[in-house]
């Protein structure tokens, strides 16, 4: 087991702990901008704006939780 452990690579997270807060803020900001745009625009193309808004909010929420110390 020891040899196997040595030959394995240490886990590296997608975003390091220091960057959780800035990444979360940027993503949430993007989410708010796109959703603002969505609510101002009632044409069918608004749903295309909802896609990046939801995605940014979704990832932003995960990093925001991590940034405040609730490691999900």
């Amino acid at each position, binding site marked *: 087991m020891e040899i196997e452990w040595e030959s394995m690579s240490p886990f590296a997270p997608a975003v390091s702990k220091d960057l959780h807060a800035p990444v979360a803020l940027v993503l949430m900001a993007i989410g708010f901008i796109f959703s603002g745009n969505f609510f101002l625009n009632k044409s069918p193309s608004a*749903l295309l704006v909802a896609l990046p808004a939801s995605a940014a909010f979704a990832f932003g929420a995960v990093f925001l939780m991590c940034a405040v110390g609730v490691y999900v």
Partner: protein
Amino acid sequence: MRGPTPWGLLLFTFATLCTASLPSTSPATPLVLPPDFTPPQVFNNTNLLRTIDLTRPYSREVIAVIVENGSNQTQTEYYVPFAKEVVDRVSYVEARDKAGPGGDFIVRKVEFDEKSPVQYYRIDMAPLAPSSQITLQLTIGLLHTATPRPATVSQVDKQFLFYRGSRYFHSAYPTLKQKTKLRFPNPEVPEYTKFTPKAGSTDDPAKAGSFITYGPYELVKVEEKGGEPIELMYEYTAPVITANTLERDIEVSHWGGNMAVEERYTITNKGAKLKDQFSRVTWAATSYYNPPTHAIKSLTFDLGVGASDPYYTDEIGNISTSRFRSNSYEALLELKPRFPIFGGWNASFVIGWNHELGKFLRTDKKDAEQYVLKVPFLEGPKEPIVYDEVEVTVILPEGATDVSYISPIDIDSEERYLHKTFMDTLGRTALKLKVRNVADEAHGKELIVMYRYPKFAGLRKPLVFFTGLMSLFLVSWLIGKVDTRIAK
């Protein structure tokens, strides 16, 4: 509705979210023998030296014995007997080939007849040819061997512990020559059993400094078991710290790159109780010259280099009497309980801290979805301590499968379940390991947990949020489309 596409996406997402399966379980295999079992008389103990270390709140016996195969067949199974009332307090039994290349041997508890006055552990040695010898080293950890005597002392009195053992090593085989050496925390041993020495020999036992030696004794038969009891009283200046329960949670977060550890302790000082009421004045006066005390004043935990965000709380809230010293070679958390814990007093508290996950988790270079977690099974305080019940829970990320583990100590029972907490849809894969009677020698021994964590499982949390928000947007867009005008 504009078409089936968004709903289809929604249904597909939820269907995939609900298909993750529970991890499998692996049953334990006890060594079961017939109820009328007695160990076959195939060995002789040629020479045996037993050293009993009483410097900690449990006893640690190291037995070095030259075992000779007295039969005419190759033998591998060596049995170690324990009295029925002792066997429940056995923390561990380890065996190794002391001089030869045999290394560590597997030791297993024998299950045969619960009512039998003698219970056994079996050592699976390297094959021993007829009339050849092996030097076996047994290490036995026994908990709760000493009780305070007198049972009550005053706040500034010395504390003495009473130990009852046996004159001979209780072996399943005849022993030709043996000696028992006891080691104490200091030379203060006011009472110990004395035997009449044989003609021509010196005192039995012989006392030198903080050691007492019984023997040597020639030819001790199996029927003698341990022989006459030996009783001793020795000074023990430290508290007898016992953790009645310890619940240790290790939570792995791939998104956060974090390993969170939380330990919930309920501790008791099993030392001598206070004769009178606790005197705050005496306590404050004596703390100026800081004498050794039998109360628990403080506990020091080494959290490992890189530990961060420690906390120390109990049911009331934060306990402010703690200090965290973290530098490049250690991270010490020094705790003071809310009150000094004297004999018979209890305290419960919670400590927790974080670590970078990369130090403990590695991934297979060929298979990026395969992970190996290597963490200390127990950490615990630097002060000598014994644990009655320990529960170690490893909480893996949601969606982790194929969980297996290698434990450094024998596990009594394991439980696998789903632990639900923040942002979880299914629950995180959790593995709970329960052990009884643990001595502090288990500190730092590593538990290895292997699991698979598919890429999709990692995306579950954002995907759930994405789906929820997307449906909100869709509903709001649809409501915005409804024509609420009364007249055209």
